[in-house]
């Protein structure tokens, strides 16, 4: 092989490499754009399919489909209103969030600040194991074990001592919004705490050291350095959990008591209720009337819109918090 040949070979290889890298860039760009377009198209298609499927019921019931409380699939007397299930969804998720958010952030702070190192890693690993448990397992456990425990040791005492308050008014049965909320909380704690842990980990040491240098105790350091710095991340983590809680189906179906129509609006913590996704899961298989089917798809649309708005609110709050944070830092 002559030296000239060798040189051309090198030039060629560089040339072909640069061509390759250009086409690689293009390819990568196309791939990324394609992926995001794909996601957008999927969302648009879901929205289209839901809207199209729910047109018959929207034409029949109009706004009454959102604010009505009747749910009657009997042929000849169809009437469908989503309000009880909207309320059921929001109430059960609210209970779950009230319990899960403080506990999750507590776990995250504990793991990062109080027991850093091996114990913290082991502990967070155990908490994250909870995220790997399928929701139907939580559901079965709640149905066969947990609800009796909850009824006998928490609900009954509450009902007996505060029964004249309407919140604890109904005789507890163990299958109600309260149980659903608590089990949902257990289910979303690993998600919220895992994300919160990363958020808290990313708080710069300088912030914490500064707080300590000013004579802050550990709690004061958490309150003045970690929480304000990580606010937007912690909010984001919570909304991630909320999204999971709102859409959860099979677990809720097993323990929420599945009331229908007006009686599905929970009048107390111990009332049976129903969520948008649970009634879809309950009735979709056997829905034979066209209106009934359309009403169930309509509930899917309502759920879609609710989730959509919650996400918008989340983005809005997070951006606001981030802005005020950066103002603080300046």
């Amino acid at each position, binding site marked *: 092989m002559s030296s000239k040949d060798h040189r051309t070979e090198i030039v060629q290889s560089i040339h072909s490499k640069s061509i390759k890298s250009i086409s690689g860039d293009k390819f990568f760009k196309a791939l990324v754009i394609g992926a995001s377009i794909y996601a957008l198209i999927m969302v648009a298609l879901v929205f289209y399919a839901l809207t199209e499927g729910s047109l018959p019921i929207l034409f029949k019931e109009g706004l009454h489909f959102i604010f009505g409380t009747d749910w009657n699939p009997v042929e000849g007397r169809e009437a469908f209103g989503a309000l009880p299930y909207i309320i059921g969804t929001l109430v059960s998720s609210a209970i779950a969030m009230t319990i899960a958010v403080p506990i999750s952030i507590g776990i995250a702070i504990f793991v990062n600040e109080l027991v850093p190192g091996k114990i913290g890693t082991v502990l967070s690993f155990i908490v994250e194991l909870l995220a790997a448990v399928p929701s139907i397992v939580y559901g079965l456990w709640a149905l066969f074990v947990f609800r009796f425990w909850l009824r006998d040791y928490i609900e009954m005492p509450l009902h007996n001592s505060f029964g004249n308050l309407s919140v604890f008014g109904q005789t507890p049965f163990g299958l109600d919004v309260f149980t659903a909320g608590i089990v949902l909380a257990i289910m979303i704690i690993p998600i919220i705490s895992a994300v919160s842990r990363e958020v808290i980990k990313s708080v710069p040491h300088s912030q914490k050291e500064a707080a300590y240098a000013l004579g802050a105790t550990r709690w004061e350091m958490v309150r003045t350095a970690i929480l304000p710095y990580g606010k937007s991340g912690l909010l984001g983590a919570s909304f991630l959990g909320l999204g999971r809680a709102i859409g959860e189906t099979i677990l809720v179906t097993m323990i929420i008591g599945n009331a*229908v129509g007006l009686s599905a609006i929970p009048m107390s913590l111990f009332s*049976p209720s129903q969520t948008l996704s649970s009634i879809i899961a309950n009735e979709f298989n056997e829905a034979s009337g066209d209106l009934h089917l359309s009403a169930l798809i309509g509930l899917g649309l309502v759920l879609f819109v609710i989730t959509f708005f919650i996400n918008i609110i989340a983005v809005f709050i997070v951006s606001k918090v981030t802005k005020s944070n950066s103002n603080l830092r300046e």
Partner: protein
Amino acid sequence: MTCISNLKKIGVSLLALSILIPLVINSANSAYAQQKVTINGAGATFPFPLIDTWRVEYQKVNPNVNINYASIGSGGGIKQFLEKTVDFGATDAPLSKTDFAKAVNPVHIPETIGSVVLSYNLPGVTTPLKLSGPVIADIFLGKITKWDDPKIKQLNPNVTLPSNPITVVHRSDGSGTTFVFTNYLSKISPEWSSKVGSSTSVQWPTGIGAPGNEGVSASITGSPYSIGYVELAYALTSKMNYATLQNKAGNFVIPSIESTMAAVSASASTLPKGTDPWTSVSLTDAPGKNSYPIASFTYIILYKELSTNPSIDAQKAKSIVSFLSWAITDGQKFSKPLGYVPLPPAVVKIDQQTLSALTFKGSPISTK
């Protein structure tokens, strides 16, 4: 160079092989497949264990026929039947007027019978509770709220009833069991009929909903002072207390395979032909002194002219008819061990007439 051309040669021969091999296998397959028939069905979950047993047992009778049954629920079964994506549908409730009109000449073939029992959890009460239709309706309407209500006491004078509130448990999922139960309540109570009505899922005035027979049974066994309804087959295999019910003749009858069969036999003379609409057929509140009042058929649905469904050819038509003829006669011996009620002879006769009325492209189907 030689290396590349060698590779090419190998590539070409591989390509040729990959085309040839499936061709050979396919032609062998199609020669073999001429006797193999797969019948696809979908529908009600209630008869699934029985149909699945038939699938296995029928292989011994005719090894060339495969039965494929997807238990997706009656609603789905009717839908797929109307869309002609399955060879037969199965449903717990007969076709509604709208669906009967939508399908072109459908036929109903009752293939087995189920009944619904009232199951309860009453600590301290050991004798079977006696209930009547109107009392059950009042409990499920939320009008009778305590166990020691005078109306329940009147039926059970020798039982000391607690004064605890009654917790009503019903199915939360759409179900044929709910259809039968609400059909019975609608017949027996004008108030139920006007306020709630009958369907696979209804607007329950009170109570807690649990998914499936298992869900209802778990809710009842776990909670004292509750009452709900489950399928007979389910109640027989699980250790649940169930009520004796007052029938049309005024007798209190224990739910069992025999008392359900008595109800069906008593109603057999009023049944329509398989080709007529069955919308109004109901075995609930049947006459006869031993008849259990909450019973129901579950149906296989077919087109009278089998070629209405383009996926059915002459051979498949023949196989469907042979299979069903076997299922309603010899196949019935598998019902009892599974907790199903076998068809009485009068109903088998109606089914046989329906099967012999089926046609393929206008001509009757011989199963010989």
